[in-house]
């Protein structure tokens, strides 16, 4: 075959025994397990030859956890031990059984594309849809925070750009989880970067890439936990606007394969497989080549020209080069047809790449198009006009084979069916034991002011203004509700709203929910609470459940370990239950597994806490009805909506006092849905002047933030708060994090109408906005909090005043 002339090696697997097969996988960073290697051996034994390195690498990428999500699609044997009782369940395909099923059952006609494409798409108006995708870029960001987050945002932008025939990116969202920013250096495990350095690098990467792309970054969150030290999490999301007649794509046999954008280099080799293994002390040495190098302007040029080509209908299908590079882009697009690629035509950054490297490289800012030959000249001209490289690298065929050549020599030739469906089905074991933590035994303190301040200053709650102002959240001119709100433009908004079409009053609401602390107790309630939080954030600014979709992003530890796997199963079950109850469909999602770090000095492997990010997207017909969270007028009434339970497990109050507890907040979706729907009605009638959801820190933090964002004091009385009747403690009323609760501000003349519209739900008038700077909370006659908004705001701001 002349393979040696084109720098391609034959890998001898036909003669390899089990140990050798595993060694081939390990040495080559292929992340293939033994069963998978045996399946590959059998395929090649049947056709009577050994695979080339190009073939083996293609299979490793395509079959990687990162690309194929085998944990979510495989079998699970789930065992549950709850108070000595044992229960066993076999689940075939978590994704279909729960997440996709929820969407099917909810069956909303405004869902235009779900789970099928690079992003989910819902209806925006008669002409346009809105696409939304959130991705993770965890492992690269652990090794190289700046490059990792830059290419994370660059990658997710290409996901919406690659949905249907391409969406115009209109908004970015970012959620990060880091180790403690003040971790003492002596506690830093060998081979890891200090969390503060990771933090600053990640923020700088998102800033430089997002700002240069001209996409506003207007929503996000940052959380801290010591288990993220070796393995930080970087979630990057992008929202895009797409004409409704451009949501579908279809590759046609005979279409030319065109690669556009950046050139291919040796950066980002093995990114997909690297994402599918645990990190260790030597990851930087062994895997730094897996980190890609970003260039925002190359991507911006590509976006500008691609949208012109889209609007002139110059191609049939598109996808992005993400994990696995060309191998997964061409492989996915040609799955039903077949594809023939000439690798020597691919433009390189520099000479010397082996064919498998060209095929797998995740070098950034590239997309692959399927172009009818009669349109090719017009298409190439669009790109050439604005200095974007576009190259014909092959064609889609009808023989259902993946055929790759280099200088005329065949370097890979496999059935598409084997590449995509040859992966052996796996069974993962999952075993769940209910965890039990020490219950706190301290008394209800007389004065809770100190604890309110401790929670406000705690890194998860504290102001992130230092970060937010480094992102351009105004570009594109559609910003309606900004991340920072209030009299001094610095209060913490619940969600952002943007107008993608400047001549229209329709708006898009984006919010998120995430709280890994609850997962330490039970990931079922963590997941349910994350959905509830994302939805109440959207509702708080004027979104409505009836036109809200959600995205799931799981970042987990090693799913081969039964306890981690059980946590995952429970979270996914909650996703189904809660989404169906709220009738908010999942439209897209992603999982990032194997987020664990082996610490060589202690011999321990540290898993990240199970972390589920729920992102919500809602479309509102009239942005002028939106509201912000800041208190507006002295004399206005303050109400609590929703019931407060003794649910302190995983709360921030326990956290600042050194406890976890057990009574994790649960979601009561029937009541929650009713509450949110009524509140949306009241907001759309213009009855609500300000609304803030109760999350970390409960009523205490929500009211304090509303007061200092608005620049007015508040006087509240806890005796009016509707509570379950199993407790009387002030600290529980003030800091419980029960779900589906809101604080609202109502002007006195509208209280009657407001109460009427909320009839049948749990709510109470608990105090008012005052014309001074005092922030006072009583229970009956007893003083519980006595402070002023300046000092509360100061502690909230000083943690990250860098």
């Amino acid at each position, binding site marked *: 075959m002349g393979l040696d002339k084109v720098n391609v090696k034959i890998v001898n697997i036909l003669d390899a025994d089990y140990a050798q097969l595993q060694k081939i996988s390990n040495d080559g960073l292929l992340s293939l397990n033994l069963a998978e290697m045996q399946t590959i051996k059998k395929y090649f034994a049947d056709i009577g030859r050994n695979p080339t390195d190009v073939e083996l690498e293609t299979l490793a990428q395509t079959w990687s956890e990162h690309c194929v999500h085998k944990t979510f699609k495989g079998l699970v044997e789930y065992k549950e031990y709850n108070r000595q009782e044992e229960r066993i369940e076999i689940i075939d395909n978590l994704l279909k059984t729960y997440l996709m099923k929820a969407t099917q059952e909810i069956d909303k006609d405004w869902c235009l594309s779900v789970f099928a494409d690079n992003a989910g798409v819902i209806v925006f108006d008669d002409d346009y849809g809105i696409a939304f995708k959130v991705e993770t870029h965890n492992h690269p960001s652990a090794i190289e925070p700046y490059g990792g987050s830059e290419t994370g945002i660059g990658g997710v932008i290409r996901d919406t750009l690659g949905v249907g025939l391409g969406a115009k990116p209109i908004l970015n969202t970012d959620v990060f989880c880091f180790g403690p920013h003040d971790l003492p250096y002596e506690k830093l495990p060998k081979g890891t970067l200090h969390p503060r350095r990771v933090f600053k690098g990640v923020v700088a990467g998102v800033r430089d890439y997002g*700002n240069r792309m001209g996409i506003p970054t207007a929503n996000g969150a940052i959380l801290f936990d010591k288990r993220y030290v070796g393995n930080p999490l970087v979630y990057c999301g992008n929202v895009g606007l797409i004409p409704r007649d451009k949501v579908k794509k279809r590759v046609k046999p005979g279409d030319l394969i065109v690669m556009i954008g950046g050139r291919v280099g040796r950066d980002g080799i093995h990114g997909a497989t690297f994402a599918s293994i645990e990190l260790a002390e030597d990851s930087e040495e062994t895997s730094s080549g897996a980190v890609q190098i970003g260039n925002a302007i190359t991507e911006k040029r590509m976006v500008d020209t691609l949208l012109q080509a889209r609007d002139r209908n110059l191609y049939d299908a598109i996808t992005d080069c993400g994990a696995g590079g060309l191998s997964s882009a061409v492989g996915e697009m040609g799955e039903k047809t077949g594809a023939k690629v000439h690798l020597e035509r691919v433009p390189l950054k520099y000479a010397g790449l082996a064919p498998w490297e060209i095929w797998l490289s995740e070098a950034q800012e590239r997309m692959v198009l399927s172009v009818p030959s009669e349109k090719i000249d017009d298409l190439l001209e669009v790109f050439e006009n604005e200095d974007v490289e576009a190259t014909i690298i092959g064609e889609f065929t009808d023989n259902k084979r993946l055929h790759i050549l280099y200088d005329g020599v065949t370097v890979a030739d496999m059935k598409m069916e084997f590449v995509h469906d040859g992966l052996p089905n796996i069974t993962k074991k999952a075993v769940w034991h209910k965890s039990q933590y020490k219950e706190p035994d301290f008394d209800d303190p007389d004065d809770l002011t100190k604890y309110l301040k401790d929670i406000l200053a705690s890194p998860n709650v504290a102001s992130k203004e230092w970060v937010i102002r480094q992102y351009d959240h105004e*570009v594109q001119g559609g910003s309606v509700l900004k991340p*920072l709100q209030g009299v001094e433009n610095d209060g913490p908004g619940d969600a952002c709203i943007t107008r993608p079409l*400047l001549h229209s009053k329709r708006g898009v609401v984006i919010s998120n929910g995430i709280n890994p602390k609850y997962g330490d107790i039970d990931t079922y309630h963590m997941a349910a609470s994350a959905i509830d939080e994302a939805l109440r954030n959207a509702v708080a600014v004027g979104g409505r459940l009836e036109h809200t979709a959600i995205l799931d992003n799981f970042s987990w530890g090693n799913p081969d370990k039964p306890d981690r796997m059980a946590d995952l199963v429970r979270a996914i079950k909650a996703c189904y239950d809660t989404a169906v109850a709220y009738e908010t469909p999942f439209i897209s999602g992603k999982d990032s597994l194997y987020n664990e770090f082996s610490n060589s000095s202690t011999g321990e492997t540290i898993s990240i806490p199970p972390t589920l990010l729920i992102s919500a997207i809602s479309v509102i017909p009239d942005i002028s009805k939106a509201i912000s969270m800041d208190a507006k007028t002295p004399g206005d009434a303050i109400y609590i909506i929703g019931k407060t339970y003794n649910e302190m497990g995983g709360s921030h109050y326990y956290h600042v006092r050194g406890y976890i507890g057990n009574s994790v907040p649960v979601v009561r979706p029937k009541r929650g849905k009713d509450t949110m729907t009524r509140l949306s009605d009241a907001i759309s009638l213009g009855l609500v002047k300000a609304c803030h959801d109760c999350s970390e820190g409960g009523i205490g933090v929500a009211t304090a933030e509303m007061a200092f964002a608005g620049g007015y004091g508040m006087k509240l009385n806890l005796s009016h708060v509707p509570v379950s009747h199993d407790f009387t403690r002030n600290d529980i009323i003030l800091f419980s994090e029960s779900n589906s609760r809101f604080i609202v501000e109502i002007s006195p003349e509208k209280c009657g109408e407001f109460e009427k519209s909320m009839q049948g739900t749990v709510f109470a008038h608990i105090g008012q906005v005052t014309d001074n700077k005092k922030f006072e909370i009583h229970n009956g006659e007893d003083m519980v909090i006595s402070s002023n908004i300046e000092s509360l705001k100061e502690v909230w701001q000083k943690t990250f005043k860098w």
Partner: protein
Amino acid sequence: MKKVKVIALRTAGTNCDYETAHAFKTAGAEVDLVHINQLIRGEKELSAYYIMAIPGGFSYGDDIAAGKILANELKYRLRKPLENFVADGKLVIGICNGFQVMVKAGLLPGFEGISDVQETTLYSNDSGKFECRWVYMKHQANSNGKCVFTREIKDIIYLPIAHAEGKFTTAGEDILDKLEANGQVVFKYVDAEGNKADYPWNPNGSDRNIAGICDSTGRIFGLMPHPERYLTRYNHPRWTREDLPEEGDGLAIFRNAVNYAREKL
């Protein structure tokens, strides 16, 4: 009514073109988004337009220095058409990156036409980082009537900035004095009450709090804040709590330009 044609110049990294075009359209103009390659190749002619806008963004990534490469393209590849455009009494506005381009191309400060020597620049913010925040700017009385873009405008306007390199500075005090004496300083950063104030009111540490300047004819105007980002009350960061007019402060700048072009050209 005469159609006023506006060219919004694009290149790799331009990213405020859509909203800038929308602003001019709202003010009654017809707008073409034109890539600089189209001008260089002669597919489009600058002379077909009355107003040129250089929108914000990161032209060519702001590699080398903010706006430098696009400035050089204007200076060396489009010099003649640009000189003719200015000599014909037409209007140029540069916003943010566009302003950075204009000072580097010698269009501003424009004491006597396009200069080969760069006399002013926009340097890294004193805070050392990119910042996105809203700022108050006071219209400078002594430039009243001179700058075409601010012929009719409120005394104090509120607009967002979003930049890392926006500190206006000059080759010397004499240039600052000359700008002030000529009435070429159009806007200065102030606090909410209109008083001179430091960071964050002056968000980047600009000399004499200068936010925007025009050339000696008043027809070429550059500023760091983004008027195209405040066209309706719903852009204002406090629209949910303040009583505001429907129209945003930024629109007047585009309307003044379009009205002037309609009268004069």
